[in-house]
Every structure is written in C-alpha cells, then in structure tokens.
C-alpha cells in the first residue's frame, strides 16, 4: 500500500512537470526544480552577503547627505578623489606594512615557534608553551589596545620607563604620539596579540604529519633543520597558505586597534583604510566616498583571497 502510494505520487509529479520517456523529469527541469531546496539559502546569502557588496558599489557612485537624505549621482568622482587623496595612500601603505610584518611574525615566526614547541620531548612542556603563547589571543583586541596604550604612554608608560632604566634615554619617545612610530607601535601590539593563535594552528597542522616520515628521515641521517625544511614546511603548506590569506585580509580590515590606540593620528599618520573609511563616513559625513574606500578594501582582500586559494588548491597536501 505504501509502495503504491509512493509510485502514484511519482507519476503525478512527473505528469505535472513534464517527463522523459522513462518517466523521470528531464535533467534540465530536474535541476531547476531542485533549486527550490536551496532557494531560501540563496536568497538569504544574496540578501545578507551579496546585496551589501553590490550596494556598496552603488553608494560609492553617489554623494549622500545623511541628514537631509539627499543622494546625488557623481559617477566615478569618488574614485577620482580617492586616487588624489594622500591619506588613502598613507592608509594603503600602513595596511601593507601591517600585512608584511604580520606575515613575517604571525605566519613564518609562528610556524618556527610551533615547530620548536612540537619538537620538545615532553608532552607536558608542549602543552605549557602552547598555553603560554596563546594567552594574549584570549584577550580582546580592544582591551589589548588599551593595555598597550598605557605601556606606550610617554610619562608613566612601561616601555619608556624600561628604556630609561637601562640608560637608553635617547630612545625614549611618545610612541603613539610620534607620526614616525605610531603605526609600528600598533602593529607590534597586534603581533603580540595574534602570534599565539597562529602558533596554535601551526602546532595542530604539525601534529597531523605522520611520525613515520620523521623516523625515516632520522634513519637517513637528516638533522632537525633538514627535517623542518624537507618535511614540516612542505607538509604544512596548506596551513601556511591559509594563514597568509587570513593575515593579509585581516591586515586590510584592521580597525579596532588603530581606533583605540590613535584613532588614525597624529595627523593621520596611522590611518588605515578601515579608520579612514570610518572618518569619511561617520565623522565627515561623506558616505559615498567612504563606500569607495570600502570598495578598495573589498577588491584588495578579494584578489588576495582568490590568488591564494588558487595557489593552495594546486599544492594540496594529502596523507
């Protein structure tokens, strides 16, 4: 009875939608019908992910006054302004610095540290060091920013006090108040904060490498550096690739730490694209121009992401 019910249902479905000689719907029609099951997800993703992206490009071609609601179409004028805005170039430079320094410390530095920790003989020691390095990552970036603001303070800050105490008075300076050092001081804090998290991810990747490979290498006479270079590094390249993507996209989306520590100052020297976007939109009331800056961030992170994904797809590691 139940079987008959199913069959009759299938026939009725086919009759209503058109079917091939065998009774099943045509492949093209079947594909379209199956779209119903993902329609809700597609609409939600379209609404919450793609619509804001497309809308941002639309907004970037306008000049908007949020108070009066006036929207004027200005074509590509905001992009033209962007090219001639020296602060945009300062911001791009600062974001790039952020990315390069973060790759050095949070990708390659973290990889080396993870390899050293995982090379320790004792499991207990490994756990201890992993936890030690991970602690800063458990602190919110805003709290870390405030903490380092006090460390960098010119009068009562720990850093200047430490320099004075060892006779390096010549190096004492207002780290966040000097246009030459402000962005480096922020980046340094960010490395402290993110280093442990990257180390932990690399440690997990290293743990997945089969032990026999190392045993065979030892029998062949490979030393620790050789094993690191010929086994650990190539077999964690997928994680390395992923970390590079995350680090670069993160570097171009950085906002909180700059906002908390300098708000882009002094004299815009530590502006990054995110804070300059905020300044234009929410302080100077230039939402159209802010959207143009957002478009730049989107393009940079998107291109980086695609390039890196293509690279790692070609070099996937499988055990």
């Amino acid at each position: 009875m139940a079987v008959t019910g199913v069959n009759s249902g299938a026939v009725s479905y086919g009759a209503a939608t058109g079917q091939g000689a065998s009774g099943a719907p045509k492949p093209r029609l079947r594909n379209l019908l199956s779209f119903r099951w993902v329609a809700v997800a597609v609409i939600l993703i379209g609404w919450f992910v793609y619509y804001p992206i497309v809308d941002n490009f639309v907004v970037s071609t306008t000049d908007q006054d949020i108070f009066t609601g006036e929207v004027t179409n200005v074509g590509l004028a905001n992009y033209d302004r962007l090219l001639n805005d020296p602060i945009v170039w300062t911001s791009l430079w600062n974001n790039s610095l952020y990315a390069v320094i973060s790759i050095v410390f949070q990708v390659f530095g973290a990889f080396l540290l993870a390899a050293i920790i995982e090379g320790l003989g004792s499991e207990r020691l490994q756990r201890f060091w992993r936890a030690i390095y991970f602690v800063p990552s458990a602190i919110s970036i805003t709290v870390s920013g405030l903490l380092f603001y006090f460390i960098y303070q010119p009068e009562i800050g720990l850093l200047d006090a430490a320099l004075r105490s060892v006779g390096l008075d010549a190096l004492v300076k207002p780290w966040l108040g000097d246009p030459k050092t402000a962005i480096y001081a922020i980046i340094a804090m960010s490395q402290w904060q993110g280093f442990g998290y990257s180390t932990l991810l690399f440690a997990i990747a290293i743990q997945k490498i089969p032990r026999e490979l190392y045993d065979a290498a030892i029998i062949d006479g490979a030393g620790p550096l050789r094993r690191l270079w010929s086994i650990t590094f190539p077999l964690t390249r997928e994680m390395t690739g992923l970390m590079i993507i995350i680090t670069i996209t993160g570097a171009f989306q950085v906002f909180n730490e700059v906002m908390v520590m300098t708000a882009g100052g002094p004299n815009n020297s530590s502006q990054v694209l995110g804070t300059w976007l905020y300044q234009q939109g929410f302080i100077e009331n230039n939402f159209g121009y802010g959207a143009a800056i957002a478009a730049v961030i989107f393009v940079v992170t998107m291109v980086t992401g695609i390039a890196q994904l293509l690279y790692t797809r070609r070099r996937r590691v499988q055990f």
Partner: protein
Amino acid sequence: MKRSLHVVAVTVAAATALGFSAGKSYSAGKAVEADPAAKVDYSGTLSVLTKFGLQQLSPYFVDLAKEYEKLHPGVKVELIQESDDSVKGKTKTLVASNSLTDVYFSWTGSWGGNFVRGNRAVDLSKVIGPDTEWGKSLVPAAVQAFQYNGKYYGIPLYLDAKFMGYNKQIFSKLGLSAPNSFEQLLSNCDTIRKAGIVPISLGNKEAWPVVHYVGQLLAYDVPRETLERDFNPKTAKFDDPGYVAALKQFKELADRCTNGATMNGESYASALQAFSNAKSAMYYQEIIEFDQSAAPDSALKQADFGFFVLPVPEGAKGDAKAVEGAPEGYMINTASKNIPLAIDFMKFVTSKEHGQVLSAPPYGQPSATVGGASEKSMSPAVVEGLQVLKSASYLMPWLDTANSPRVAAAWLSSLQALAGGSMTPEQVMDQVKEAAAADAKK
C-alpha cells in the same frame, strides 16, 4: 547545474541590490512643529541618547529615567549613554540607519544645524521660545544658542565653557599669582618648570584638546564677524592674519608650558589625572570638569583649586572678553511617535529641582535652568565660573562643532601636527583653507 545555480544566485543578488537602491532613501522627514496644546500620552517607550556615558555622569539620567517611570508607570525610558568622544559617531550611525532616538544630544552651531537642515529636529518654538513658560524657566542665552532660522530647536541642559584650572598651592609656593596676560602665563610656566613641575598637563591623543586652546586664542585674535563668516562653508575664507598669530601663540605656549610633542601620545583623561594628582600646576578644562579635577578623594583639594580665563595675548585684535564655550542640550526627533511625551520628559529633566542635582557634585554641570544652578549645593569654583561666563561678551563656539565636518577634521589633524612639530602655523592654515575650498565646491 553548478553554472546555472551561479547565474541564478548572481541574478537574485543583483536584482535585490538594484531594487533596493532604486527605492532607497534616508527619509529625512518633514518639518514638524511642536504643539503646546497636544495631550501627553503616558504610554510606550521613549528612547534617549545622552552624552553622559562616563562612569561618574551616567547615574544622572539613569536616576531620572527611573523616577519618570515611577511617576508614569506606562512609560519605559530606554537610555543610550555615550561619552564625549563616541557620541558623534553613534549619532551619525543612528541617523544613517533611520533609528535616531526620540530625544538626542546635540551641540549648538553647525552640529545642531545638521539636524535642522535635515528636518530631524522638532521646531520647539511654541513650547520653548523666550515667551513661553518653559522658555522663561531657562537661561535666555542658552535657549538662544539653539536658534536656527529664527526658530528654536534645542533644549539646553547645561552651560559649558573653558577655563585654565590651577593648583593654588603650587602657585603660592612659587610666589606666583593667576596671570593677567598671556605673556605672564608664559613666564609663570618658566618658573614652574624650573621648580621641576610640569606647568600645564596636556593630552592631545583625541586631537580636540588643542583645538580648544586654539579656539579661545582665535576669539582673541580674530574679529568676531570674521570668525562667524568663516564658520559658514559658503563664505569661509580663513584669510585673517589673526589665525596664524593665534597658532604661533599656541605653539609658544606648547613649547614653554607643556611636555611638547609628547602630548599627542597622551589622552586628555591622563592629563586631567595628572592635574588632579597635583603632578602638574595647570590644566585647561571645561567648567563641567571642575568637580572631577578637585574631587573629595583627589590630591588636589577643592580649596586649592583655582581657575582663570586663558589670558589675552598682547596686541590681539579680536574680542578680549570672549570666553570659549556653549550650552549643550537635546533635540527631539521629528520621527518620534510620541513627541508630546518626549517634550514632557525633557521638561521633567530641566526642572529646577533636577537642575540643582545636575549642578552639584559629583556631576558639576551648571544647569541651564533658572535657579537650577544653586550656589548652596554647587562647588564654589563652578559658581564663580558661571559668574565669569555671564560677563562674557561673546561665547566662542567649539571649533570642531562650529565648522563643517571637513573643516573641523582639517583643524583636528593639522593642529595635532602643529603640536607634534611637523607643521608650521602657515601650513595648518593652508590645510584648513584647502578643506574650506573643497567644502565650498559641494
């Protein structure tokens, strides 16, 4: 299949985007006039955006909200409390998302003018104008400060002005007195520095503290009419020689009285703390900060706290009796569903009784309500400050709220550079003029 799904997804996204863009507007709203005869419906929720987010200030509105809810059980008051630094960003976010609260904080000048221009502030002329009962209960100059195009849009809550606070004990030990001229102030600074004390603690991480110094000096150096012409983006020129003169005076003050370039690495709160801890001899502050400088638990005692108006430089061509400051207050959203209730709540907030609470420690915000600033409950310094304020010939508005956002941003960043030594006064003015010229083109 994969390809067709992609096509569908992109089409849906694009169609949604275009559809929304076509129909999008910030719905600035229509002009709304408050009706004095409107009946108040004591029900529903009333949202209020305040600038009392600091820990020591936040209980004021919290207590008022509780009291109002107790009086009117059908009403719920929802507070969003922001600090001086965060309220600008928060307000603009709320405006951009059409979720501005029923009652919201506003400065006078171009900041408040934005809400009037966009029909986001209720015209309160018939309920708060000088001839109305409510209007008469408030300090006339404070009500006047929220006048735009001949109409009244704001409810002043307190009066604010900038003074140089000083530690009387340090001054007396060094045989100094409150200076009568700018030059005497500089000479006092030299004496204090020789004694191993920081003359003026100044934290400029937020950039606006230096703007406040310059604002007062501009009032002294640039004629009032010229200043007001330059506040207007359509007529701004910034070509008066008084601008550069004021910046040179500030630079000299920064070099001789403060820790110089390090100021950009310190917050204004740290500088206030240094003064309060008696680590510095002076701190340039708003009258609403007096009770924070000399609090019961601070090293600087109330009896040792003195203040003076930043003295006038020799040969200044502006108004020697001007004081930098302005009332600060609240506006009512034209989109509010219950405007009479919002007005009723603000009448409650600005009552004489609540004004006295606001004026007294720990809040120390001199109420704009007549009789609200009670000398009995207020700190003597705040009372004295109010007297000086009353005798001022002109209230110079804050530069960063009087000018357009773009010009204000130019002032903020370039003055930070001047303080740090990477720009000259002339370069600062070039940057301000450039911003003004870009504004004029809009």
